[in-house]
């Protein structure tokens, strides 16, 4: 048996064992009125979408606060308040994991650029233009585009131009850990259910330091509610840091401008000074040894 067919079997077994988490409640499982469909009768998710929450600041409920550098950023950098996207008031962390989350928050702007993996010990990955992972990519304040084919669905996020294929047929076990994880999808009625594993443990959920490890397992449910919005729900588990699985949910809206398109956010050049200046390897254009 080759590795690929093993992967399919493993994925199938996981589907059977986990049952893809809880089912969404409400009328969404049946054919929804006004939902566009593809040639094969599935809901047509093609398009540019965006969510509008403050969850990228903190997925838990949070007040408005001054920003990270109020002395120079003023209201530009301030954090808006928001009710969060989690079910309940708090993520069910194990006690020691709460301490780690608080440490993450304290060190969210402390970047440490080394040429070994200890560079991932500190600093919000977003600050450093690293891939945001799942589910964070879905609630960052940037649009994303869904490209839907029968056997694969591709999501391209404007932030960092991060992309993520969803494998419907064939499915496959994650061949290697990654930032965006490995996504296998299937349709349950009108809901696209995506099982995401194979994370590398470096991603955060938000700027507040909420995090998981490489044992993170996310089951997403994308359910159209009409032509121009869908409900996103994700069940999140990681026995290393959480006492039980927990859920997030929020609506995602279609961008309706007639010629809307993603506008590149290739943020690498925006973080080079932050990351390489402390090493003496960056001089702003036209200055210092780089002036030529």
């Amino acid at each position, binding site marked *: 048996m080759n590795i690929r067919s093993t992967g399919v079997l493993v994925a199938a077994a996981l589907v059977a064992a986990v049952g893809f988490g809880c089912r969404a409640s409400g009328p969404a499982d049946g054919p929804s009125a006004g939902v566009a469909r593809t040639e094969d009768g599935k809901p047509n998710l093609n398009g540019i979408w965006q969510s509008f929450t403050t969850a990228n600041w903190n997925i838990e409920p949070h007040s408005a606060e001054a920003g990270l550098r109020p002395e120079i950023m003023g209201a530009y950098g301030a954090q808006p308040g928001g009710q969060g996207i989690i079910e309940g008031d708090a993520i069910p962390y194990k006690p020691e994991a709460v301490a780690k989350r608080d440490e993450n928050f304290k060190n969210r702007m402390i970047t440490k650029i080394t040429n070994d993996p200890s560079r991932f010990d500190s600093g919000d990955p977003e600050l450093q233009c690293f891939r945001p992972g799942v589910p964070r990519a879905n609630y960052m304040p940037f649009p994303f585009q869904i490209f839907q084919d029968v056997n694969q669905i591709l999501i*391209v996020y404007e932030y960092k131009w991060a992309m993520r294929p969803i494998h419907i047929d064939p499915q496959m076990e994650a061949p290697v850990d990654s930032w965006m994880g490995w996504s296998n999808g299937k349709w349950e009625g009108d809901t696209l259910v995506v099982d995401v594993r194979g994370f590398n443990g470096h991603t955060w959920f938000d700027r507040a330091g909420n995090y998981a490890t490489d044992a993170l397992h996310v089951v997403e449910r994308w359910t159209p509610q009409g032509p121009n919005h869908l409900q996103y729900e994700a069940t999140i588990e990681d026995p290393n840091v959480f006492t039980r699985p927990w859920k997030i949910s929020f609506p995602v809206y279609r961008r309706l401008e007639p010629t809307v398109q993603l506008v590149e956010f290739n943020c690498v050049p925006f973080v080079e000074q932050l990351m390489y200046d402390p090493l003496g390897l960056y001089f702003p254009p036209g200055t210092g040894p780089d002036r030529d």
Partner: protein
Amino acid sequence: MGSAILRSVLGVMLAAMSAASVAVVMAQAPSGATPTLNLDNTDAAIKAAADAAKRDAALKNYAPPRTAWGDPDLRGVYLTATYTPLQRPPELANKPLYTEEEAVAAFKKAVEADAEVDPRTVHYDWKEYSMDAWQGGARPSLQTSLIIDPPDGRLPPLTPEAQERRQLAAAAAKKRSPAAGILTFGNTYTRCILGLGAGPLVRGGNPGADSAAAAAGVTAEVQIFQSPGYVTLVMQSNNDVRIIPLDGRPHVSDKIRHWYGDPRGRWDGNTLVVETTNWKDRRPSVNFQGATDAMHLVERFTRIAPETMQYEYTMTDPKTWTSPWTARGEMPRVEPNLLYEFACHEQNYGMINVVRGTQIREREAASGGRPAPQRGGGGE
């Protein structure tokens, strides 16, 4: 199939373990797709590649299947690596095409050169990780250069403006400080801003594990993804993505500039024609050959056989060349139909080492030691 995945995983492990000192290390993301080849027998693999090229050349007027929504079906992962050089070597002037025997001989020579890597640049067995192009499925070609127009197979003469740019850049390089940083000693590839196929896709072969500018065979896959109204190109290298709308919409405002340009596509029979404008000034950058942000790129994708995509592109930049030029190559289709994450910037350990290493070499050169390394990246 299993071995392809295994090789990819090995590639990732290698990337994770290495903190070596050269740009090419960054190219050690997994090689996404590999056809079934006899990896133990170079001659058999070369023969198979030659037979595939011959088989496809004999197939005339192939009509690809259609997608469910009626577009020509170009879907799949294709290999962009080739040993055919962009420009015709001077010794082959007036010889645009090889005979079949000559083509196989030239391919074999390139394969052998590719297997020999400079130990100062690569400190492991290049072949063991399938990072030489032939193991990825590159095929012999009758063309002696990718450039088919101008007919001499060479880039057109530079405009006076471009000549001056080049002279200024060369003069600046001579007096540059060895303490310079990433903006001088890095390029868009080593800085993880753009991958090796960010447009145009095929750059031409310079086999061997030379600098980023030359390594045509690593992570040289593109996935062509189709959905109603769009063709989307995902490159294995740096996971660059080019989203191509087919609905005839105008380009974005001239004020908006993209690293990947602003592409618009249309069907010309079974050929996908993509016109890309609105580039950022991305010099020095691989594949741009020193062009400016005025570059106008027209690409033509034609699936000429079940397993072969013909890829032709024309580059026009009146600020750089005195005339447009056109290159043509073939991209073999490879399996499996998926790519892997290429998190380049996230673990760009190479950036630190490349720049520090270059600073050391520059100081050595300044004190009369060994010559300074060439700055990678192609272009000015």
